[in-house]
């Protein structure tokens, strides 16, 4: 296995909600011990619903926030906002981002050519006609006519604006791009264009993607590996094929069951009740336990309430994970004979 291009180790981010003068505020445990790695040229998707912590994780990876704990490693070297300046500079060149709303991503008062040229100017890479050529090249790469470079963002459609945002992300020839809901704000018929573009660019330039999304269908289409987040933790991490064909964690099952199938004869699966866990007021033990159908199935044992499987289970391999006391090959100490899914033993 090649060494990963990006590694997150035990990332933690807690926010304190200030309560003003009346006592201390609550702690929002937005990200609580998340570890994963991205392989060169591959896409790792992080999926989750609201409150899962996936967006905060993306911001931590982009060094837009300082983690409360844990670390980020790029090509083996640790990077942080207040770390080595040279390392940080290299990181900034190599890791870029594309966000959800194309119009908010592009400064409304800058011309498109300046927007795309900015990263190059920041790093003093080029100037003058060389810069202009590079901008034209990038626009062509993403399918926008270079003649429109002097226009402003609002003069483009949503799809084109997102292409421009992608062109800017490509300017420094990064190794990894963080895609935060890259097509959610776009119309359906445009999404396909952008998704195809992203896949094409990955093949062409050997890019790695960290894809953050709530859209499970899109994720299946684009990803090699998938991590599922719930209430600030990664509860399952495995390759995409396996996740969709043979999900282990009850929450993953719940997510997949809830995605409405395009076949009217395939009904919605078992809908899990309750609300998404509130990161400011988490359940004890396993964060999913109040809603977990598996727990009910196995007779509501106390371990789900007392022990958090994310910390209780030893992770041998940072590329495979299933944080459940009753699923996955690594069992927590006490319950060796916990129920498995009928038939096979699963090698996680």
């Amino acid at each position, binding site marked *: 296995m090649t060494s990963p291009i990006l590694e997150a180790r035990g990332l933690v981010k807690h926010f304190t909600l200030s309560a003003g003068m009346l006592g201390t505020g609550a702690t929002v445990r937005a990200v609580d011990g998340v570890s994963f790695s991205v392989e060169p040229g591959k896409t790792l998707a992080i999926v989750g619903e609201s409150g899962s912590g996936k967006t905060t994780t993306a911001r931590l990876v*982009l060094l837009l926030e300082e983690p409360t704990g844990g670390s980020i490693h790029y090509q083996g070297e640790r990077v942080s906002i207040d770390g080595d300046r040279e390392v940080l500079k290299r990181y*900034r060149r190599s890791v870029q981002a594309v966000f959800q709303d194309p119009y*908010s*991503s592009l400064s409304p*008062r800058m011309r498109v050519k300046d927007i795309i040229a900015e990263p190059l100017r*920041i790093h003093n890479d080029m100037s003058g006609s060389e810069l202009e050529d590079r901008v034209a090249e990038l626009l062509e790469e993403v399918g926008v006519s270079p003649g429109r470079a002097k226009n*402003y963002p609002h003069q483009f459609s949503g799809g084109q604006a997102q292409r421009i945002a992608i062109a800017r992300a490509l300017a420094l020839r990064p190794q990894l791009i963080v895609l935060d809901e890259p097509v959610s704000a776009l119309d359906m018929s445009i999404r396909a264009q952008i998704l195809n573009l992203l896949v094409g660019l990955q093949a062409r330039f050997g890019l790695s993607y960290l894809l953050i999304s709530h859209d499970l269908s899109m994720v299946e289409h684009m990803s090699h590996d998938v991590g599922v987040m719930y209430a600030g933790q990664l509860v399952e991490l495995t390759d995409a094929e396996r996740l969709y064909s043979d999900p282990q964690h009850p929450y993953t099952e719940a997510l997949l069951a809830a995605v409405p199938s395009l076949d009217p004869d395939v009904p919605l699966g078992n809908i899990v009740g309750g609300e998404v866990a509130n990161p400011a007021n988490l359940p004890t033990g396993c964060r999913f336990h109040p809603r977990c159908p598996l727990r009910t199935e196995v007779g509501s044992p106390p371990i789900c309430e007392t022990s958090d499987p994310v910390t209780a289970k030893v992770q041998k391999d940072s590329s495979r994970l299933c944080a459940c006391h009753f699923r996955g090959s690594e069992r927590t100490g006490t319950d060796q004979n916990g129920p498995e899914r009928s038939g096979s033993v699963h090698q996680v």
Partner: protein
Amino acid sequence: MAYPLGTDQLGRDILSRVIYGGRISILLALGVVIIGGAVGTLLGLISGYRGGATDSIVQRGVEATLSLPTIMVAIVFVYIIGQSFAAVVLILSPFIAASFARMVRGETLAVRNMQYVLLARVAGASHMRIILRHILPNVAGTIIVLATLEVGSLILVEATLSFLGVGIPPPMPAWGLMVDSGREFLTTRYWLTLFPCLAIVLTVLSINWIGDWLRNVLDPKQQLE
């Protein structure tokens, strides 16, 4: 016609006095807005961008200044220091600075979390670059509108101060002064007061309109395809 708007009680031509008075009033207003505006914008940008302790300190200062009654403070100050162009500029600038600082800080806070600013950080932009290239241009529109509003309001403040005798010293033909000295002739020779008043009103109105126009012109979204 030698004196188209008539003469005042000392025989001076009102038209030329209105025109010269205008020059002085506008000069003063512009001066204060430029000095106070520059300082205020700087404070607002830094305070809004950095947040934390810096922000709190600047904010307290701004709030304190804005809770003072401008005219009263100006009266006392000029009374103590003595009337002069410089004195008036000196005492009015902090109030303008505070007003700009508060406005710019608010806008900076909004722009700072915009996605394009975050992406500039991701690309490795320095703080200076972000402030100058991203925040300032997107705040410029509001600054200009505020500046024109303040110029208008300063002309009125200056007129008030001169009217009360603590503004620009005579014999400089300040409009407020002209209004004041024309007071005793209000019933008989009302034009001594009327014309400087009209001048004030028309000037302030025009400046506001210019501000509106400027803001529209500078907004790229207004340039329709």
